[in-house]
């Protein structure tokens, strides 16, 4: 493994910070009920999107889930358009048609987001098939949770991707819960990486709160693709700090044990990485403060943009049911 450059290490922190601060801003603003869309927050899992997407070019394609803000931000899409989408504005990334769960940004390889558990895995696999058929160099990445491993699409897609040696990385964010159902009541073991064996591909288990570990694992998976060997499954073991949906924690409602949450919060992916950065003198406290300032400034701009943007006109209800353009005549 080559040494990771300091600039990349800083960038990893920046991406995690941007996701964290963005989500915290959503948490802060959500109670005013101006964002009329169910938000599935990513706080606690930031290292995964940041670590994987740091290795991707804008041409590389990702598919995400209902818990998608982190991937959208890490892939480099505009948070102005994200915030506007949360506010249901016509300037939103999906013109106010998608809401929080259906983000899109084709310019950076986000070709839409499915909120049906496991279904995006098949779409990413299909993107990889197109890439292979066209002889392109780019890759596809599927982000999904442990709940998706319950679904047939996970297994069907892994089978096909391995069979055809497709350029796709399967990134499972194992936060141990599908809504409020613990993995122990859904799967015979929680060792998701082991599932890869059945499909004859490598399965890597990695600490989902360790951004450098994730970065290195993703790099290995991409190198395998470049060598023409096909997909890898990476299981990132992590924890979401908020409830399945909405800005609150859920232990008060008895959804999860309080102690479990606090044990995981002690392992905050940002705090532990910050300590690493300080220890290795990659960044100092004032460097971090500058970063926070820059990120907050961008987020405030996004909020202003979203709040000031107009709502869609009522007539737009009927637009886009069918694709209206004519770009698609056959050759």
């Amino acid at each position, binding site marked *: 493994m080559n040494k990771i450059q300091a600039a990349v290490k800083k960038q990893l922190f920046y991406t995690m910070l941007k996701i964290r601060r963005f989500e915290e801003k959503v948490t802060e603003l959500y109670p005013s009920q101006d964002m009329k869309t169910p938000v599935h927050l990513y706080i606690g899992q930031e290292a995964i999107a940041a670590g994987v997407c740091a290795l991707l070019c804008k041409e590389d394609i990702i598919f995400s889930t209902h818990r998608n803000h982190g991937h959208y931000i890490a892939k480099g899409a505009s948070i102005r358009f994200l915030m506007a989408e949360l506010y249901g504005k016509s300037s*939103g990334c999906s013109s106010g*048609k998608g809401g929080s769960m259906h983000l899109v940004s084709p310019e950076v390889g986000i070709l839409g987001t499915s909120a049906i558990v496991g279904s995006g895995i098949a779409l990413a696999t299909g993107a990889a098939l197109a890439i292979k058929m066209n002889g392109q160099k780019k890759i596809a990445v599927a982000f999904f949770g442990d709940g998706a491993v319950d679904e047939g699409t996970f297994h*069907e897609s892994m089978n096909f991707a391995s069979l055809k040696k497709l350029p796709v990385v399967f990134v499972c964010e194992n936060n141990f819960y599908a809504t409020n159902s613990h993995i122990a009541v859904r799967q015979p073991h929680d060792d998701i990486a082991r599932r890869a064996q059945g499909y004859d591909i490598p399965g890597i288990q990695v600490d989902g709160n360790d951004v450098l570990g994730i970065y290195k694992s993703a790099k290995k998976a991409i190198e395998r693709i470049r060598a023409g060997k096909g997909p890898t499954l990476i299981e990132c073991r992590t924890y979401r700090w908020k409830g399945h949906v909405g800005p609150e924690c859920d232990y008060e409602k008895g959804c999860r044990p309080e102690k479990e949450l606090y044990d995981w919060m002690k392992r905050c992916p940002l705090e532990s990485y910050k300590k690493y950065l300080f220890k290795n003198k990659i960044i100092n406290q004032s460097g971090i403060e500058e970063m926070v300032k820059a990120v907050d400034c961008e987020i405030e701009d996004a909020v202003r943009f979203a709040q000031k943007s107009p709502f869609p006109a009522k007539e737009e209800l009927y637009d886009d049911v069918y694709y209206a353009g004519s770009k698609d005549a056959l050759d």
Partner: protein
Amino acid sequence: MPWTRVYINKDDFENTLARDGLRGITYREALRETQSALLKKDKRIFILGEGVNDSGGIFGTTAGLAKEFGKDRVMDIPVAENALTGIAIGAAICGMRPIFVHMRMDFLLMAMDQIINHAAKWNYMTGGRVNVPIVIRSIIGRGWGSAAQHSQALHSLFVHIPGLKVVMPSTPYDAKGLLISAVEDANPVIFIEHRWVYDYIGYVPPDVYKVPVGKGIVRRQGKDVTVVAVSQMVYEAIKAADSLQSENIDIEIVDPRTIKPLDEELILDSLRKTGRLVIADVGCKTGGLGSHIAAVVYEKAFSCLKAPVEIVCLPDTPTPASPVLEEAYYPGKEEIMASVKRAIHAK
């Protein structure tokens, strides 16, 4: 016009058009020829489905194509309808033009999540930024005890879904022209074939041409009753028309060809002329295409109706296996004739 005519049998064709040197091929051959032409024309197009490159080749409709274009472009697949549909959608989103073939329409039910939650909604959910140009061919079977899971005509389920287009060509000419239009369409198109029309012959030009999605056609002019017939029922309606003629009953046959979007104006125009409507569908009644067309007519042309709308369709039961029960299950020429007469004699 040679391309609008329906030929009930080969002799019928040979006694008319073949004499003038016009080429006649079967519906099955038309599908095969069209896919071959499409694969040749555009490298984004590929075919996938269970058994597309086996020796049978989906009842002959893909026979030999893998040999001609390779197994990557005519791709046999794992028996995993839902993920493979998602994979085809993912490829379509990334610029490919997949044609997904299902030997039986019943198997589409395994892929409903990807068809309805994804293909149908992607353009809308992305605010028009990412469209899904996919064609899903599926085949309705019938007879020989195919029974409840190998014969269903589920077109009405798809008619209910915004974002999908649904075509049901009845003639070889339309099978070719609509398949080309469907593949060229930027939206997901469910392309439904009835296996009982596979051997029907008709005029099919060898070159590439299009039949527009969303346009129906009048198969037979008549003044007494409008019969809207889809897919295989078009042939039953033609047979009924010939018999009714001898009783001095003159029916007009409208073949919608596309059932979503439905060519409502064509149906309403015919109804304004005849005032009586029989709908002949290949699916079940409740919540079905027949009920939908009736609703359109009651909503938009109630005052034109001289009699209640008649719907000839399958009863609300699963498909039985025994030949005796099958016989009781499937309507055809006789049922259409009876409905036409009821419409005429209604007070």
